[in-house]
C-alpha cells in the first residue's frame, strides 16, 4: 500500500490507518495529534497502552502504533486502571468523549480520580453525543439545541453542564494533574497532555485533561461558526487552564522555602 | 444434634463469683460453639447467664436460629431473631442495642465475638469493659484452620488480637475429627501457651471424641465435651 505520511504526522501515529475516519473539522484528530506528539516527545511509544471508549472516540482504536484496546461505553477508565494495576510499567491512556466520561462512565472516572490511580484520562468535550446523532450530553451548553433538547437545553429541567476538570481537581489527592485545554490552542493543549503523561510516568497521581473540541457535523456549523463556538462560546462556560499541577506545586513550595 | 434439656453437670466450673468471658478467634474457629456450650453449662448449674451475640461480621452462623431454644434453659440470649431483621449482610450486621450494655447485666456474661480484621477490638463496642475486671478474653484456636495451623501462625494471630487471658484448643476437622487431631492441636496450642505465658483453659471437642480422649488431653489440659448446636444455626 502506498500511503505517504503527511510531514506533520506524529511518529506514533499508525500510517496504515490514515487518513483517519473522523468527519472533516472534527476535534478528535487535533486532540490525537497533540497526544501523538506528546508520546513522541516523551519517547514512550513502546510503553503506551491506549484505550478508547464508545462513541466517536472508538474510531481511534487502530489510530496509533501503540497497543490499543477499544472498550465499552464509559468503561475505558476501569479497563486502563486494571492494566495499570497489573503492570505499572505501562503508560495507560483512557480516551473518551464527554458522554462516556461524565455520564455513563462518571462512576469509573470519579473513583479512579479519588484513588489517584496512576492513569491518564483525556476527554474530548464537544457538547453532544455525536456518534448516536447529536443528543444532549452532560456538556451541552445552556440553550444549545440538540436532538433530545430540540428547543435548547433548559438548565431548569436538565441541570447545568458538567464541570469535569473542576470536579476532578476537587477529589484527587496531591500529585494529580488536572487541566482543561482547547483545540483552539494546540500548543497549550499539547503541553497539558504532556504534563499529564509526565504525571503518570513519575507516578505522581491521576492525570486528566479535558479538551474543548468541535463537532461541526452535529452542530450543523460551517467552518467559521464551528471555530467561533469552540474559541469564543465554549470557554465562556468552560474555563481553559490548569486546575491542579503537581509540577507547579513543587516549584511554589521550593520558592516559598 | 444436641438436645437442650437442662441436666445437672457440675464438671465445668467450680467457682461461684461472676463469670464474664469473651470468646474470640479466627473465622470458623468454633467461637460460637464453645460459647454456647459454656453458657449452657453455667445455666444448667443454676447460674444466671447472659449469652451475647456480638458477631457483626458473619450473618450466617449466629445464635438467632437457636435463640428461643436456648432461652428455654433459663438463660438470657441477647441476639436478633431472624424475622426482626432485614437484609442481613446487606445493610450490615446491626448490633442489637441491648448488647452494647450487656456487661451491666446481673449474672454471668458470655460474649460471642465475631472475627474480622479488628478482631477483639469488637470489645470496644461494649460499655463498661474497664469496670469489669473479671472479664476473661479467651481465644479459640482450631489448628486445622489454614491460618492458625502452626505455632508461629497462632503467635502472629494472637498478637493481633489484643489482650488475651486464656487459650482454648478447639482443633477439629468437622466430622473427620479423631482423637489424634485433637491431641496434635493440644500440643501446638500448649506450646503457644508456654511461649506467651497464657494458660490453656481447656481442650474442647465433640462428645464422641472427648469420650475417647478422657478427662485430660496429652498435655494435661482439661477436656470439655461439646454438643454441636451451630450446624443448625446456618441461617
Amino acid at each position, binding site marked *: 500500500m502506498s500511503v505517504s505520511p503527511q510531514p506533520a504526522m506524529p511518529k*506514533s501515529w*499508525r500510517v496504515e490507518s490514515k487518513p483517519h475516519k473522523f468527519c472533516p473539522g472534527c476535534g478528535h484528530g487535533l486532540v490525537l495529534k497533540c497526544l501523538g506528539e506528546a508520546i513522541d516527545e516523551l519517547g514512550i*511509544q*513502546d*510503553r503506551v*497502552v491506549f484505550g478508547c471508549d*464508545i462513541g466517536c472516540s*472508538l474510531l481511534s*482504536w*487502530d489510530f*496509533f*502504533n*501503540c*497497543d*490499543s*484496546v*477499544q*472498550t*465499552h461505553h464509559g*468503561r475505558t477508565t*476501569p*479497563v*486502563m*486502571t*486494571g*492494566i*495499570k*494495576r*497489573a*503492570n505499572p*510499567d*505501562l503508560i495507560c491512556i483512557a480516551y473518551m468523549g464527554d458522554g462516556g466520561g461524565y455520564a455513563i462512565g462518571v*462512576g*469509573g472516572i*470519579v*473513583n479512579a480520580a479519588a484513588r489517584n490511580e496512576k492513569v491518564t484520562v483525556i476527554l474530548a468535550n464537544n457538547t453532544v453525543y455525536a456518534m448516536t446523532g447529536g443528543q444532549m450530553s452532560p456538556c451541552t451548553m445552556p440553550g444549545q439545541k440538540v436532538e433530545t433538547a430540540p428547543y435548547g437545553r433548559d438548565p431548569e429541567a436538565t441541570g447545568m453542564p458538567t464541570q469535569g476538570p473542576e470536579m476532578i481537581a476537587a477529589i484527587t489527592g496531591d500529585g494529580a494533574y488536572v487541566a482543561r485545554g482547547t483545540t483552539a490552542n494546540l500548543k497549550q493543549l499539547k503541553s497539558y497532555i504532556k504534563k499529564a503523561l509526565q504525571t503518570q510516568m513519575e507516578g505522581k497521581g491521576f492525570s486528566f485533561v479535558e479538551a474543548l473540541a468541535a463537532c461541526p457535523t452535529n452542530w450543523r456549523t460551517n467552518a467559521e461558526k464551528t471555530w467561533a463556538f469552540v474559541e469564543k462560546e465554549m470557554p465562556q462556560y468552560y474555563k481553559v487552564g490548569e486546575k491542579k499541577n503537581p509540577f507547579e506545586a513543587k516549584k511554589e513550595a521550593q520558592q516559598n522555602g | 444434634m444436641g438436645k437442650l434439656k437442662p441436666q445437672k453437670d457440675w464438671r465445668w466450673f467450680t467457682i461461684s463469683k461472676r463469670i464474664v468471658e469473651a470468646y474470640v478467634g479466627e*473465622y*470458623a474457629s468454633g467461637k460460637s460453639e464453645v460459647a454456647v456450650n459454656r453458657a449452657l453449662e453455667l445455666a444448667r448449674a443454676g447460674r444466671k447467664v447472659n449469652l451475647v451475640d456480638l458477631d457483626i461480621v*458473619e*450473618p*450466617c*452462623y449466629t445464635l438467632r436460629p437457636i435463640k428461643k431454644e436456648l432461652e428455654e434453659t433459663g438463660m438470657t440470649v441477647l441476639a436478633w431473631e431472624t424475622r426482626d431483621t432485614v*437484609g*442481613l*449482610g*446487606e445493610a450490615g450486621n446491626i448490633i442489637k442495642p441491648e448488647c452494647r450494655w450487656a456487661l451491666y447485666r446481673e449474672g454471668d456474661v458470655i460474649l460471642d465475638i465475631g472475627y474480622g*480484621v479488628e478482631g477483639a477490638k469488637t470489645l470496644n463496642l461494649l460499655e463498661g469493659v474497664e469496670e469489669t475486671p473479671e472479664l476473661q478474653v479467651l481465644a479459640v484456636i*482450631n489448628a*486445622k*484452620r*489454614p*491460618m492458625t*495451623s502452626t505455632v508461629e501462625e497462632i503467635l502472629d494471630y494472637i498478637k493481633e488480637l489484643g489482650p488475651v487471658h486464656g487459650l482454648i484448643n478447639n482443633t*477439629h*476437622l*468437622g*466430622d*473427620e475429627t479423631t482423637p489424634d487431631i485433637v491431641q496434635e492441636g493440644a500440643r501446638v496450642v500448649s506450646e503457644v501457651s508456654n511461649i506467651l505465658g497464657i494458660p490453656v483453659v481447656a481442650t474442647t471437642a465433640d462428645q464422641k471424641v472427648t469420650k475417647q480422649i478422657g478427662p485430660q488431653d496429652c498435655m494435661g489440659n482439661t477436656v470439655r465435651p461439646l454438643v454441636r448446636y451451630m450446624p443448625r444455626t*446456618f*441461617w
Partner: protein
Amino acid sequence: MSEKPITGEKRAFMTGNEVVAWAALAAGADIMYGYPITPQNEIMHYWTRQIPKYGRKFLQTEDELSAGFTTVGGVLAGLRAFTATAGPGNTLMQEPMSMAEMMRLPTVTIVQQRGGPSTATVIYSQQEVTLTTMGGNGEGLRIVYSPSNHQELFDYTIKAFNTAWKYRFPTFVLGDGYQAKMRESVTLYDPAERGIEMVPTEKYVGKPGTPGVDRDPGHYRNTYNTEEELFEVLQKHFADYEKMAPEVVEYAQEAVEDADLVIVAHGVVFRGVRDAVKELRAEGLKVGYFRPITLRPFPAEQLKAVANKAKKLLIAESAQGQLARLIKDAIYGASAEIVPMFRPGVGITTEQIVAKVKEAL
C-alpha cells in the same frame, strides 16, 4: 515473596469462600479485583490477608462494572486475574464479561449465588444459572463449572484458570451461599505437586518492543462495522467453542443404566440427591442421578442418552426451572417425562427428594 502458599497436602477445616481464596493463591492467580457483596466477601477478606506474603495484588473497585472491567484489564496485561460476585453484582458483571466473550479474554469469575430477582436474600439460591451461563447480550461463549463441595470448589477454581487461558473464553465457578459459608474439610495442595501444570498466560498489551517498529501493535476491539464482519468473527468463536466443548464438558452419573427415574441436579443440591439415590436404591427402587458439572458447555449428548432410557427425569433445583431450561434444550426429542422439583431460593433436603421421587414413581 515467591514462596509457595501450599507445600505438601494439607487437610484443613474451612468455609467455601476461604477455599476459593486459597485455590486462587495455589493456582498462581496474580491479582483480584472485587466489590463487596454478600455472600462472596470472605473471598476478598482471605485473599487480602494472604497476598502480602506471596506478592499478589488486590484492587477494591467502586462497583461490579469496574470490578469486571479492571479484571479484563488485568487479563489484557497478561496476568491471571479474577473477580468474585453474586446476585445484583453478577447482573452488572455481565457487561464486562460480554466484552471478555467477544474479545476472547480469559477472565475468571467466582459467583456465589444468592436469592433473586433483585436484592432478595443474601445467602443461598441457584437462581443465577441463566445469568451466568447465558448472560450479557451474546451467545453464552463461556465456561461455567458448578461445584458441589469444598474439595470441588478448590479443584475447579484452579481448573478455571487453566480452562480460561487454554481456550480463551471467560470462565465462571458457580457456587452459592451455602457453599460459600458452609464449613467442611478440604485437602489443599499445590497444583504442581499433583502434576497439574498451570497453563501459561500471555500479554495482550505491553509485549516487548516498540509497536510499528519491532512488532505490530496489538489492536483489540469489540466493535465491528458490518454485519458480515461480525458474522465471520462469531463463526470462528462458535467453531472454537464447539471444538473445545467435548474437551471441557464434565458430568457425573450413577445407577442410570436400569433406572426408571433419574434425578438431575447440580451444585449443592446434588449433595442431597446423591444421598437420596443411595437411600432409594437401598429400598430397591430403580433410581439414578445425572449431575452436570459444566453447565456451559452442557453435557447434552450424555444426558440425552440417559433421557432416552429412563422413564422420568426429576429435575431438582433451587430455582424456578433455570436448570430445567438447559436440560430441555439439551434433550429435546428424548422420551423421558420431565418431573419438576423447583424450590427457588430455598434449599432442598435429601428427605424432600426421597419423598418427591416416591410420589413420582
